[in-house]
């Protein structure tokens, strides 16, 4: 169990670090979009590359932060019934949900995204707009993000099993991000 908990702590730390760095891409998107808008209306200049970099940044942010959000238990749940169950039952739901919902879903999406990534890389696919950006880096984000999410899923399962065996306190305290 201890080795597993160490693995879990390692995954947690890695995803938290990745998430904290990726979050700043959101600020970059704000800045780029503002500058784009100002340029378009003042000197009537716009470039597809700069328009696309906006959503590249946004995609980096929301995809790479997802695993950290799972760790923080930020993903929304409906706790009408779930919230009233005992912590042991909640832990069981999260374990079974992790094994039969989160892991398969994340891995299937990651797996199915590989062929289009490889293809995109081989033909060096570009955006269909003139002056647009090369596509494979954003396609790469999909398998990476869903693999990280799957890893975090493994970590969450380990923590809940450890909780059921009395090794650690309840890991699933409800946290809802501010600002919703």
């Amino acid at each position, binding site marked *: 169990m201890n080795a597993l908990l160490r693995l879990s702590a390692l995954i947690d730390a890695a995803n938290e670090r990745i*998430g*904290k760095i990726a*979050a700043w891409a*959101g*600020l970059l998107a*704000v*800045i780029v*979009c*503002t500058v784009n*808008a100002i340029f*378009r*209306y003042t000197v009537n200049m716009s470039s*597809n590359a700069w*328009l696309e970099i*906006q*959503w590249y940044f*946004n*995609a980096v*942010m*929301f*995809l790479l*932060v*997802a695993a*950290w*959000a*799972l760790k*923080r238990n*930020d*993903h*929304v*749940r*409906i*706790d*009408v*019934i*779930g919230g009233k169950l005992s912590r042991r039952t*909640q832990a069981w*739901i*999260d374990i079974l*949900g992790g094994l*039969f*919902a*989160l892991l*398969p*879903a994340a891995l*299937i*999406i990651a797996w*199915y*995204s590989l*062929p*289009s990534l490889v293809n995109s890389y081989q033909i060096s696919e570009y955006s*269909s*707009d003139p002056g647009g950006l090369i596509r494979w880096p*954003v396609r790469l*984000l*999909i398998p990476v993000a869903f693999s990280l999410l799957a890893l975090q899923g493994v970590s969450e399962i380990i923590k809940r099993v450890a909780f059921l065996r009395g090794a650690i306190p309840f890991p699933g305290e409800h946290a809802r*991000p*501010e*600002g*919703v």
Partner: protein
Amino acid sequence: MSFEFMAPLMFGGLVVFLLLGYPVAFSLAATGLFFGLVGMELGMLHPSLLQALPERVLGIMANSTLLAIPFFTFMGLILERTGMAEDLLDTIGQVFGSIRGGIAYAVVFVGALLAATTGVVAASVLAMGLISLPVMMRYGYSKQLASGVIAASGTLAQIIPPSLVLIVLADQMGASVGDLYEGALIPGLGLAALYAAWVLVVSFVRPEAAPGCPPESRTLYGGALIVKVFTSMIPPLVLIFLVLGTIFLGVATPTEGGAMGASGAIVMALVKRKLSWNLLKQAVESTANMTSFVMFILVGSTVFSLVFRGVNGDLWVEHLLSDLPGGALGFLIVVNVMIFLLAFFLDYFEIAFIMVPLLAPVAQKLGIDLIWFGVLLAVNMQTSFLHPPFGFALFYLRSVAPKNIKTTDIYWGAVPFVLIQVLMVAVVLQFPGIVTSHISKAAGAISGSGADEIRRQLEAPESPASTPGGADETSKPNEGKGDAKSEIERMLNQQQ
């Protein structure tokens, strides 16, 4: 062999999954994938269906409308810390304070102003709960009226543009965000007026529940007060112009408006010397986490709806809802009652992502104006914030309310305001003109002609995934503006 049982089974499976309390995003994705695999096994679905998944995810990533979500969230989080709400409440409270129910009017007024700047409910409720609630208690307001008016005015952020809910709704229905913003403006302001009217009624029927403040509570008089009113009103008015003004004038797309608002908020925080490294870091991280969970629900619901349509679930829902007695009106009434009841259990993101993609195509087939339909649903969904026992505005208020205000006070205080919202739903239902009449076709066409909007439209034929709502139907809702669009496409093609 027919597989008509699949769609109801799938929907039932999702409901069970959600009720167990597993995260919504993964419940949606897993239910979709499970039934997708079963469908392929039964030979009902073609294996290529799931290969469409990565393109769909890419479509969500590239969606320029959804880009507005982090922008407005970020703006709201920054503003929350700059003390703009505090300034406003303090000043407006001084202006109205001495009349009967004055602070309650100030709360409604400031709630509407904050709503027009940030679009984030939590920020408004927390700020007003922290500042106005103690003041109202000190001068003897009824606990129920005080907590009700604060929670309700906070939820105005959800209906008055630039609200996040309207962005999500527009995306799910394939409508223009700008049009939905314009359509929601009058109903939103109407709600604020009705809240104020309710305060007026209470102050006449039960004067002791909404007293005026004694003259000695005022610290500013005459010229000083006027100056303070102007200085505290400038920041929100500048932001409202930056965001809503540019969107309504057709100068900026909602996404650009959001980015400029966020940048404006940063500049304002810098000017006020409130922007610390720590504050910026917190805002960036909270924005990322919130955006991530919203986008992942969207990814999940895309997986779900992809398979749900594959097993003809859309036909099933359409069949259920279009056979209702009373045609379009019958459909609208049933849908509104259903959303009102669902709002007790779900919050607006879940309703918008799960229900709206099922309802919008049916509404369209019945000839219902989608902008009007969207505003109607948005007003209705607003109740989800105020419904005891799960309304989020009530949670937020509880977390900052003094101990001597009981949770039941907060719950009962919300009830009249929920009824006012239901009244507003009925008004919008009865008089569609208050939503649709002032949406100028021209403004819609212009606001839809921002560069990235054009690119999105041009991309559409190549990647149907760019309208995550799903299949072909969702591209039609724009029919009203179809001419403008093809015009733009023609123009661009000529240029190339």
